[in-house]
């Protein structure tokens, strides 16, 4: 493998490979050989994304039909006459054949109508719009922290394999992906909130600030910052700290483990030996040669952790009473609130699928640009 191709950073290549305005791809003739594979990947990516979303909606639809809860009966009550019940079935479209029902389901879901939540009495889409930003905020802060720590620890461990420091890194990440996250959250609340009084209790804001800050974006940090109230911002930040750190620890475990493994695997390659023989230091080799080569792998693992933080919110939000979509879903589960459960699953699932698909696409582009 020639060294020159490796020393070229991926960033400069990426800039060339992706046209600044992808929109006019269709209108103009492909100029170079690079444009066509790009378009082809894009089409394939969109296709697989659509297929996966269709699969996901088939599953959520199947769940509504598998459920022992009869939506028509839920609507009219136990004492309704046979004809009222039949009428309710007809209004809900339950008398249609299954494929027709599925198409109807898909059509309403695509128009943004996810039905009415039984427990809150609101449209599910509105409930989700209200709760999802809280989850997104928590997961985003956590993944940033987790990536920074995970990457650094992984690099440190890989540079001195077998050392005491490496041992500590491996142990920390082993514990990180073995610990039940809801339990870790509980212990952190116990220690930092109840015993040491360093952190505030559950929730997103102190009670005094609740309803004083206008909700603009739905992200507590941004909203309190925009409102200009220093105390409110500090309160939002301190409430976020503990759950974000717990989630970041979990993300860090997976990221550092994979960073370490992929760098170690790469360090065994011949080009590294060549570079080292030519006098390049270990630090230089890792940052200039190895890291650009494993960027695809690392991006994938970070995106996967981010996605798992979004779906894992169901557990952490229960512990920290975080008013996000996870807690909304858990509450819905206990209320037997089918539209809410399925709507929430569909939305979070779609984000999950989109994140995965986008990463696939980005990594694919990155790798072809490197080549």
């Amino acid at each position, binding site marked *: 493998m020639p060294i020159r191709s490796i020393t070229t950073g991926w960033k400069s290549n990426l800039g060339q490979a992706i046209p600044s305005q992808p929109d006019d791809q269709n209108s103009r003739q492909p100029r170079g050989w690079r444009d066509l594979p790009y378009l082809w990947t894009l089409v394939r990516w969109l296709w697989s994304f659509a297929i996966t979303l269709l699969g996901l909606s088939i599953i959520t639809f199947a769940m509504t039909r598998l459920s022992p809860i009869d939506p028509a009966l839920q609507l009219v009550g136990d004492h309704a006459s046979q004809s009222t019940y039949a009428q309710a079935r007809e209004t809900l479209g339950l008398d249609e054949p299954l494929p027709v029902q599925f198409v109807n389901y898909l059509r309403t879901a695509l128009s943004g109508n996810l039905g009415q939540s039984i427990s809150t009495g609101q449209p599910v889409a509105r409930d989700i719009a209200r709760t999802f930003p809280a989850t997104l905020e928590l997961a985003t802060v956590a993944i940033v922290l987790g990536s920074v720590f995970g990457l650094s620890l992984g690099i440190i461990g890989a540079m001195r394999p077998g050392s005491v420091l490496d041992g500590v890194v491996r142990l920390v990440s082993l514990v990180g992906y073995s610990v*039940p996250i809801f339990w870790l959250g509980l212990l952190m609340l*116990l220690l930092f909130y109840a015993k040491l009084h360093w952190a505030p209790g559950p929730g997103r804001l102190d009670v005094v600030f609740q309803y004083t800050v206008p909700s603009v974006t739905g992200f507590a940090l941004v909203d309190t910052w925009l409102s200009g109230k220093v105390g409110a911002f500090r309160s939002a930040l301190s409430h976020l700290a503990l759950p974000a750190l717990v989630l970041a620890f979990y993300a860090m475990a997976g990221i550092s483990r994979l960073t370490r493994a992929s760098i170690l695997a790469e360090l065994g390659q011949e080009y590294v030996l060549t570079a080292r023989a030519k006098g390049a230091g270990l630090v230089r080799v890792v940052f200039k040669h190895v890291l650009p080569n494993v960027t695809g792998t690392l991006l994938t693992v970070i995106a996967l952790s981010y996605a798992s933080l979004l779906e894992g919110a169901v557990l952490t939000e229960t512990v920290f009473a975080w008013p996000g979509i996870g807690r909304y879903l858990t509450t819905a589960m206990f209320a037997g609130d089918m539209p809410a459960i399925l709507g929430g699953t569909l939305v979070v699932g779609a984000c999950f699928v989109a994140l995965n698909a986008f990463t696939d696409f980005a990594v694919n582009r990155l790798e072809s640009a490197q080549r």
Partner: protein
Amino acid sequence: MSLAFAPPANRTRLLRQFLRSPSAVIGGAVILLILVLAVFAPIMAPYDPIVQNTAIRLAAPDAAHWLGTDAFGRDILSRLIYGTRPTLLLVLFVVVLMAPIGIAVGVLAGYFGGMTERVLMRLTDIVMSFPRLLLAFAFVAILGPGLINGALALALTSWPAYARQARVETTALRRSDYLAASEMVGIGRLRLLFGHVLPLVMPSAIIRLALDLGGIILAAAGLGFLGLGVRPPTAEWGSMVAEGTQVIFDQWWVAAAPGFAILITSLGFNLLADGLRDILDPRHD
């Protein structure tokens, strides 16, 4: 487990390697201990796990109750010991359901190729990018809590990784001379699949399985924590943590003990998997 696939001469060598790997030995010992606890729970547990005694509710750990008692005055240590049973049972169900589906899909796709392969792998990719945990929660929430539903939900969303791996290996095998030779000798297709392809695909599937077990334990505990696992009063670690949450600030040990048990079990499986992988798959780092 994997030892069964090695020729007899190799077994002692593998065993020696196993004993030399500290993580495999520690992990194996932990899992063995938990298995013993699960099998002999009635003998090992000092008290009945579901008999309530409100006179001693929420007692702190002492000589009579080593880990204290919960809100119903039940001995936490006994409940922990009995809690190994649903945990291991669920893991067993998931493994028995998930691995065969995944391996079958992968082997069939790799062996037959063409349209079969394309359809099966497309399906695999689709299921692979599903939100596993979330779908499992929704599935159980709708079909009703319980061990079987939980295992089914986890298994139905977790098989794709096995299918991918098995397909890659089968495709490589399909091109091998020895498979062509056995085909020429006249060995039937079924026997070829079960007798010649499957045994060679198994070892890496087993490593993968071992690596997944820790995560399955955590997912199962998560189901229990949300109240979607085994029905009370059966002792289950995840739901024990949930019960302890009510009194976490005053009687922290009620939640701390079962969570620690989950951690140790998951840690044990992960250590064992790391060790096994180093032994059986030396190419890895």
